[in-house]
C-alpha cells in the first residue's frame, strides 16, 4: 500500500520537477542542489528553498520600495537585483534569474518603465517558482513521512 503511494508520489514529484524544467522555471543547478542532499544533510533542499524564499521576498519588498520612489536609486536597485540573481541562480530558478537580468539591464539604462516591467516579471516568476517549490516540498515531506512509516 505504502509502496504504491510512495511510487505514485515519486512519479508525481518527478513529473512536477520535469514540468518545471520543461517550462524553464528551474535549471540544472536544481539537480545539483538535490544531489547535495544526503543522509548527513536530509533537509538541505528544503532549507535552502526556505532561505531563498525569505531572501527573495525581502529583496522584492525592497525593490518595490525603491521603484516607487520618485527618484529611483538605480545603484541600490542594482545591488539588490544582483543579490536576487545570485540566489536564484544558486537554487536554479532559471526564469527568475532571467527576469533579474532584465531588470539589471533596465536599471543600467536608467529606464524606469522597463524597470517596472522587469520587476513585475520578477514578482510573477518568483510567485510561480515559490508555489511550485512549495508543492514540491509538500510532496517531499509526504514521501519522507511515508518512508518513515515504513
Amino acid at each position, binding site marked *: 500500500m505504502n509502496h504504491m503511494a510512495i511510487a505514485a508520489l515519486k512519479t508525481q514529484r*518527478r513529473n512536477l*520537477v*520535469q514540468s518545471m*524544467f*520543461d517550462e524553464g522555471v528551474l*535549471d*540544472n*543547478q536544481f*539537480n*545539483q*542542489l538535490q*544531489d*547535495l*542532499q*544526503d543522509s*548527513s*544533510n536530509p533537509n*538541505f533542499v528544503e*532549507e*535552502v528553498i526556505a*532561505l*531563498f524564499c*525569505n*531572501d527573495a521576498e525581502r529583496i522584492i519588498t525592497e525593490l518595490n520600495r525603491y521603484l516607487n520612489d520618485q527618484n529611483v536609486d538605480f545603484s541600490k536597485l542594482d*545591488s539588490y537585483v*544582483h*543579490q536576487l*540573481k*545570485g*540566489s536564484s*541562480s*544558486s*537554487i*536554479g530558478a*532559471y526564469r527568475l534569474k532571467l527576469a533579474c*537580468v532584465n531588470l*539589471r*539591464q533596465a536599471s*543600467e539604462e536608467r529606464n524606469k518603465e522597463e524597470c517596472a516591467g522587469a520587476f513585475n516579471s520578477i514578482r510573477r516568476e518568483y510567485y510561480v517558482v515559490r508555489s511550485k517549490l512549495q508543492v514540491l516540498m509538500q510532496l517531499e515531506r509526504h514521501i519522507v513521512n511515508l518512508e518513515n512509516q515504513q
Partner: protein
Amino acid sequence: MGLKLQQSQHHHSVAVKVNEQMGTKRGYTFIQSNRAWLPKFLLLWVVVMAFISAWIYKKMDADSKVRREEVLITMCDQRARVLQDQFRVSVNHVHALAILVSTFHYYKNPSAIDQETFAEYTARTAFERPLLSGVAYAERVVHSEREKFERQHGWTIKTMEREASPIRDEYAPVIFSQETVSYIESLDMMSGEEDRENILRSRATGKAVLTSPFRLLGSHHLGVVLTFPVYKSKLPTRPTVEERIEATAGYLGGAFDVESLVENLLGQLAGNQAILVNVYDVTNSSDPMIMYGHQNQDGDLALVHESKLDFGDPSRKHQMICRYHQKAPTSWTALTTAFLFFVICLLVGYILYGAAMHIVKVEDDFHEMQELKVRAEAADVAKSQFLATVSHEIRTPMNGILGMLALLLDTDLSSTQRDYALTAQVCGKALITLINEVLDRAKIEAGKLELETVPFNIRSIFDDVLSLFSEKSRNKGLELAVFVSDNVPEMVIGDPGRFRQIITNLVGNSVKFTERGHIFVKAHLAENTKPMTEAKPENHFNGGLDEGMLISGAGHFKTLSGYEAADERNSWDYFKHLVLEEELRYDASINMAIADEASRGVTLMVSVEDTGIGIPLIAQDRVFMPFMQADSSTSRNYGGTGIGLSITKCLVELMGGHISFISRPQVGSTFSFTTVFERCKKASYNDTKKPVAEDLPSGFRGLKAIVVDGKPVRAAVTRYHLKRLGILVEFANSVKIAASECGKNGSSCGSKIQPDIILVEKDLWLSGEDGGLSLRMFDGKQNGHVFKLPKLILLATNITNVELEKAKVAGFADTVIMKPMRATMVAACLQQVLGIGKKRQPGKHMLNRSPILQGLLCGKKILVVDDNLVNRRVAAGALKKFGAAVECAESGKAALKLLQLPHCFDACFMDIQMPEMDGFEATRRIRMMESQANEQMNGSIDEDSASKGEWHVPILAMTADVFLATYDECLKCGMDGYVSKPFEEENLYQAVAKFLKSNPILGS
C-alpha cells in the same frame, strides 16, 4: 549585464585600437603629402631646365662672340700696326732720299746727281721702300725760269695729260725718277690737282704729306702719293711758312700703291682668309675714301673693328676696318652642350618623378596594407572575442540541454526514445567538448593563454588521465598503461592543467581510434632516448608495407599488448634498454639527482602509442592543422572535429617542446612530444604546503611481489606502479615458475625474497597449461610452511562474472586489480586484499561520484564568503558534500576577522560582488595581513613558523561571469583562481587541484 558590459568594453577597445592605428597613417612623408604637386613639379623642373639650358647656350654663344671679336681686334690691330710700320719705314726712306737729293744736288756744285745716278740709286734701294711703287724728284721752277730750265734739260714741261704745260706761276717738273715710274719724267706735278695741293702743303710744313687716294697713273691701282719738300739752303731753326716756300728747291714724291702693297702685306700674315680688311682715308669724315678693299659691303657686317692708322701725315687721317669674311658660325658646341644639358636634366627630372611616383605608390600600398592588417587583426581579435563569448554563451544553454536529456533518460522511455535521447546526449557532450576546445584555441590565438608555473607531480597527472579513460578503454577491451621512467623527477614546476590537457587529448584520440590492442603512455627524460634512437636504424617509417603481416597477428610483437605498433621504440627490445639502464643507474641515481639539481630544466619526453587505425599517409602532414582530420570519413566514423591536435601542438610549443608522430595505417600511431619543465628544488617545495611526494600510502613499503606476465613491457608497467608503492618486484614468465620460486624460498631459510603478493595477468592465467588447478597446487605447497601465504591477485583489463568466479575458485583474492593501473588504485586494492591501512571511507557514494575531488577537499577547512545567504548555503552544501569542513562569512569584513592570523583555513572561496567590501578588496587586505605576518616571521627565527612555511591561504573567486578580464583582476588583487558560481564539479576540481594537496582516501 556584466557580460554585456564586458562586451561593449571589448568592442570599444578594439575600436580605439583601430583608430590609433589609423592615426599612424597621418605620418605621411613629404612626397606623399605633396603627391598632387608632383606633375606640376615635373613641369616646373622642365621649364626651369629649359631656361637654364637656354641661358647656358646664350652665355657660351656670347663667350664665343667675345672671343671672335677679340680675335678680330687683335688681327686688325696687328695688321694696322704692320702696315703703319712699313709705311713709316718707307716714309723715312723717302725723307732720307729727300735729304740725299738736297745734299748732292743742291749743296754740291756741280750737282752730283743726275737722272742716271738717281735711277740706279733708287732702284738699288727699292727694297727699303716696299710700299712705294716708285719715287721721283720734281724741281721747283718758277715761270721766269721756265725757259732757262727747258733749255737746260732739252724738253718742255708737260702737264699730266702729257701736253705742254700752260703758263703758270710755278712748275714742278719731274727731273729724276725711278725707272719704275720713268713715264712721269718731265711731267709737271703741279698740274695734277692732288699733287699740287700736296706740294703746297708739304713745302709749307716741311713734312711728308699724303694725297687722298686716287687711281695711280700706270697701274691704275688705288694709291696715294707721298711728297717731301727739298730745300736748297739750310733752314733756320724755326722757319716760317714763307721762309720754307722761299727755300724750297723741289719735291720728292713717291707713289704708294696701297692696294697691291696692302694685299702683299696681308698675304704674309696668318688668318688672311678669315678677315676682310678695308683701309679708308677719313680726312673728310663725312666721306671716307677707300684706299684698299672693296667698296661693296659683304662679309659679316655685324662685327666690325676699326683701327687707326697714322702714316705720319697729321693732316690726313686713315683707318683700317676689319671684319670677318663670313658671318659668325652657329656655335655647335654651345648648342649641343645646352641641348645635352637639357636632355640630361629632363631625364633626371623624369627619373625623380618616376621615383616619387613609385614611392607614392609603394606608400599607398603600404598604408593600404597597414590598414588591412589593422582590420584583419581587429577582425581576428574580434573573432577570438566573439568565439570566447559565444562559446561561453553556448555553454550555458548546452548545459541546460544536457541536464534535460539526463532527466529525460531517467524517465520511462521506449527503447527508440531512449536511443534518440542517448544520441542527443552524446552529441551535446561532444558539442560542449568542442566549445571548450574552440574557447581554448581562441584563447591561444588571442595570446591570452598563459602558462602557470606551479610545482606538480607528473606521475599523478598521468594517473588522473588514465583514470579518465579507464572506463572507455575497459569497454573497448584495450590495454591502457602508463610508464614513467624512474629518473623523471617527482615534482616539476610547470602548468599541470595544460600538461594534463595535452595528454588527455592524445590519449583521448588514441582511445577513440583504437579498437583492439593497447594504448601505452611512456614518459622519460629526453636525454635518455638519444643513444637508443641513434643506435636504431630507422628503416621502415610509416610504411604500409607490413600491413599484411599483422592482420591477425596479435601476440607476435613484444609490445604492451602484443599488437604491432608503429614506432618500435616502445617494444620490449628497446624498452628493456631503458629499464635495464635504469636498474644499472639505480644506485648512482642519488648522486645523479644531486648532479641534476644544478641544471634547472627538465626535458620530458612523452610518447603515446596506440594500435589503432593509424593516419593515412596523405593526411599525415596536416594532422596538426585545426579542423583537419585524416579524411572526412574519419569524422563520420569517429566523430570529433580535429581541433584537439592543433591545440595540443600549440600547447606543446607554448611549453617549449615540440610534437611529432609516427603512424602506419592499420598499425597504429605513436605521438611523441617533449616539454620543458623547471626542476623543482627540494628546498622550495619542502617549505610550501604542497605535497612533497604523491600521497601514496606508505604501508606497502618493503613488501615483495612477483609479477607473472609473459609480456615484458606489461610487466614493467606493473612493476612501475608497484615500485611507486615501495614494493619490491620480481618477474616470472608463468605461474609455475613463480610457484617454484616461491617454493624454493619457502624451503630455504627465507632470507631471499619471500613474496607477499603474486600478481597474475589474466590472459596468462587463462591461456595454456597454467590452468586454475596449478594454483591450487601452489597453494597446497605453501600450507606446510610457517610462511604467510602470498596473496594471489589477478590483473585484468576486463573480466566477466564467470571468469571472476573461476578466479575465486582458483584461489585468487576477491579483489581483481582492474587495468589501467594507477598507483592509488593499486594501493586501494592491495589494502583491501592485505588489510593494511585504515578503512576510512566517508560515504561510499561519494567515492563513486568524484573520488578525486573528494580526496582534495576531504577534511579541509574552507571559508566561504558570500553576502547572499542562499548562495552561501548552497556553496557550503556543495563543499560539505566533498567532505570539507565549511565555515561561512557574510561579508568581506567578517572574512577578514576570521582570517586573522593564525587561522586554520585551507582555502577561501570569495564572492566578488559584495556590499561594503567586495571580494577584491577583501583579498587585498588579507594578502596585506599575510605579507606582514610573513615578514615578521622571517625576521624571527621561529621553529614553528619555519615548519609552517609562509602564510598564503588560497583564495578563489566565486563569480557568475567567468571572463578573462575578471580573471586577470582576480589575479591582480592576489587571488589564486576562480570558480564559477554555482559550482561545477570539473571547474571546482580544476581550481582546487592547484592549491590543495590531495588527502589520500586510504592514507596511513
